[in-house]
């Protein structure tokens, strides 16, 4: 924030004032509705930020030397927010898991019942934790691989704080019962519109920074970040088209209905996995893996193959969520076919990552951070294989509607998304805060094992429960009647629900350890002697051999 010019401070104040007025308008229009509460939150949120700006409003102008360094201040805030959402979202997850084993843990209040906290968990971890991690690392990666400073100073703040306002409105809304019920897109219409505005700012900032690059080529990591930004915008807009009951009412009805809505929702839902939880995080992998392993990416051609394979194939795969339903068979079959083909680019990515480690296995042994990244690539390979397998119709007839799906999602979310994020953060944090090292490498080691063991317990519990559930539902007696009632299958789940909550708890403790370690790194570890290479090139100069893959 200290680097903002007077003009930028003025502009930021204007934006925040407008938002405060908007907040008042929402509070007034929605005074009989949860939307009014959100209006109040928008008002307070922008008011607090305005206060922060005003405290240094008349501070001196930043000097021009700032242009010879990268703009990392927004990334630092992004890192802190990522960790906040990680702990929050995972805590809600453990709580929701525990409620399935002990239903009275909702304490009989409306806001804490399973159906309301479940989207708070998914949004908290996907958008809060995952989204902030993607935005923060994308700002870091695009600057380094382009050897250019972020194109402007105000919009990174707008993106970060605007995005977190979206997350806040979304998650607080679920507790109040504000939801569209679209899985992974539960936020209501006004939050969705706000996210579009934030996303446009993000897109413009990213592309303008790319346009300033001092490298002739756009580095692979940025392909993925670009695909993430562009495709998520398309998915978000199409899936969330809706007509609100009134401008003062949080409730809206989606324009899509029935079978078309089902297809749109899973086209969105599956590609939120593809372009939010895969593409963006592959961007992380392609930058932090070679940096940490100190090895170039194994194969440029495999990178190209997997990138275009993922971008093209994934968008066909959503209908595998609707096997044997009222969706026409031809769409189901297309979805299955492309899901199976997806294994090729997916394993090309995972293989490319693991082969990059060839020659650096001694570092994997010694460095828990690199092991996080290695384990992430491994789980990426595992869960993409599992995904293709489960998309096959006969397999899906067993796995669908069961905990197996939940286990699969968490193999990806815990094993891949969270582990690549933590591996990247342990590399990123000392770098942007210019510290010699992390506060404690022993704690990184502890975190690694908590994460791995937690994930394995979780995934094994859900594999077991899912397959048992699926088999019990279809078990016939010799005289051709169903053997088990639904409640029989539910009773069989309880031990696994307890095991799952325990696995999730270990993972949550790991995230808390990580937050403590990062906090102590910033607070206590001495500043490193600055590496002179970590700076943008002056305009008009092309650096030849700076990006990690070359």
């Amino acid at each position, binding site marked *: 924030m200290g680097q903002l010019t007077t003009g930028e401070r003025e502009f930021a104040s204007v934006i925040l004032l407008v938002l405060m007025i908007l907040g008042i308008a929402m509070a007034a229009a929605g005074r009989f509705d949860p939307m009014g509460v959100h209006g109040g939150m928008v008002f307070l949120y922008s008011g607090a930020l305005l206060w922060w700006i005003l405290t240094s409003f008349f501070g001196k102008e930043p000097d021009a030397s700032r242009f010879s360094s990268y703009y990392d201040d927004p990334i630092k805030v992004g890192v802190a927010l990522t960790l906040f959402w990680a702990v929050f979202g995972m805590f809600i997850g453990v709580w929701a898991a525990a409620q399935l084993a002990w239903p009275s843990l909702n304490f009989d209040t409306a806001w804490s019942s399973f159906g309301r906290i479940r989207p708070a968990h998914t949004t908290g971890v996907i958008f809060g934790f995952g989204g902030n991690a993607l935005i923060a690392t994308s700002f870091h990666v695009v600057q380094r691989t382009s050897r250019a400073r972020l194109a402007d100073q105000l919009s990174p703040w707008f993106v970060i704080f605007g995005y977190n306002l979206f997350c806040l409105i979304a998650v607080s809304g679920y507790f109040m019962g504000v939801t569209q019920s679209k899985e992974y897109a539960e936020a209501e219409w006004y939050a969705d519109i706000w996210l579009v505005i934030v996303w446009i700012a993000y897109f413009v900032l990213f592309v303008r920074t790319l346009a300033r690059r001092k490298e002739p080529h756009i580095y692979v990591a940025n392909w993925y970040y670009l695909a993430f930004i562009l495709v998520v915008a398309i998915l978000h807009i199409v899936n969330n088209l809706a007509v609100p009951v009134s401008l003062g009412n949080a409730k809206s009805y989606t324009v899509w209905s029935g079978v078309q809505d089902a297809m749109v929702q899973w086209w969105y839902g599956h590609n939120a996995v593809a372009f939010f939880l895969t593409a963006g995080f592959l961007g992380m992998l392609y930058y932090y893996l070679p940096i940490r392993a100190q090895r170039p990416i194994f194969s440029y051609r495999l990178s190209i193959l997997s990138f275009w394979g993922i971008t093209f194939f994934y968008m066909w795969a959503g209908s595998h969520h609707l096997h044997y339903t009222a969706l026409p068979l031809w769409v189901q079959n297309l979805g299955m076919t492309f899901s199976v083909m997806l294994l090729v680019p997916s394993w090309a990515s995972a293989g490319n990552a693991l082969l990059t480690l060839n020659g650096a296995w001694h570092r994997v042994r010694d460095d828990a951070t690199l092991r996080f990244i290695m384990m992430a690539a491994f789980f990426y390979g595992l869960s993409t294989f599992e995904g293709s397998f489960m998309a096959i119709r006969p397999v899906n007839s067993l796995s669908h509607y069961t905990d197996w799906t939940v286990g699969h999602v968490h193999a990806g979310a815990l094993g891949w998304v969270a582990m690549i994020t933590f591996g990247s953060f342990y590399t990123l944090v000392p770098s942007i805060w210019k510290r010699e090292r992390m506060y404690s490498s022993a704690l990184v080691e502890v975190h690694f094992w908590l994460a791995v063991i937690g994930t394995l317990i979780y995934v094994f519990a859900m594999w077991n429960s899912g397959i048992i559930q699926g088999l019990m539902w279809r078990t016939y007696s010799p005289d051709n009647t169903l053997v088990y009632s*639904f409640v029989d299958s539910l009773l069989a789940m309880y031990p696994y629900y307890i095991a799952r909550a325990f696995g999730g708890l270990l993972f949550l403790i790991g995230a808390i350890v990580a937050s403590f370690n990062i906090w102590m790194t910033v607070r206590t570890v001495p500043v490193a002697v600055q590496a002179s290479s970590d700076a943008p090139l002056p305009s008009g100069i092309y650096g030849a051999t700076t990006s990690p893959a070359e």
Partner: protein
Amino acid sequence: MSDRLHGKLERTAVGFMLAIVVAGSVGGIVEIAPLFTIHETVEDAPDMRIYTPLEAAGRDIYVREGCYACHSQMIRTLRDEVERYGPYSLAVESKYDHPMLWGSKRTGPDLARIGGKYSDLWHVAHLINPRDVVPESNMPSYRWLATTQLEISDLGGHLAALRAVGVPYTEEMIASAAADAYGQSNPDSDQSAGVTERYGDETQVSAFDGVKNTVTEMDALVAYLQVVGRLTNAAYENTAAPEQVPDPNN
């Protein structure tokens, strides 16, 4: 050759973005657009009804409480599902569902054929404390629904918004939405006759939560649960398309 081609593409941000948008759009266009144009996608069901204001309000509560997170409303074309739950679900049954609530997870059983399966009283007891009627259940209790008055004054606005997205509500239905919600949950009231008049004789008029003269959220949710799967009879009829006589001129 392809390396050189890609090498060029990597040098232009705009070209690269266009390529991403093109590659990423094909799947969605091919799979989604025809669902609106191919007539067989959604079956014809002349007897298809639409939700009454009370049922629509109940559906909103179902959405609000996230019931779809644990209950599907989509019976697949599999023998064990048909034998456990009833006839497999047809596309037409969710034709007016904005959004659809097919669900993706069965922590609890499928609800596509729940309408009419249990009494109102059972539903009320179950929602107040599921373990009173199903001791093994891990479902949360929803006892506050019985004591929370349903907001009926803006139901007309909800129907109008639903009409804007394609549900055939008439002006009259929108104008009398609040009265119809009251009438449907108060069988002996003056307002109850209008409900069946506007929404069909099949409509269930009942004091759903067992208490007259009030309209609670419990009334609405039970009214909705009782109509799930009963808007049309199509799933119980033979829906196979009649064999077409080949056209000799074609």
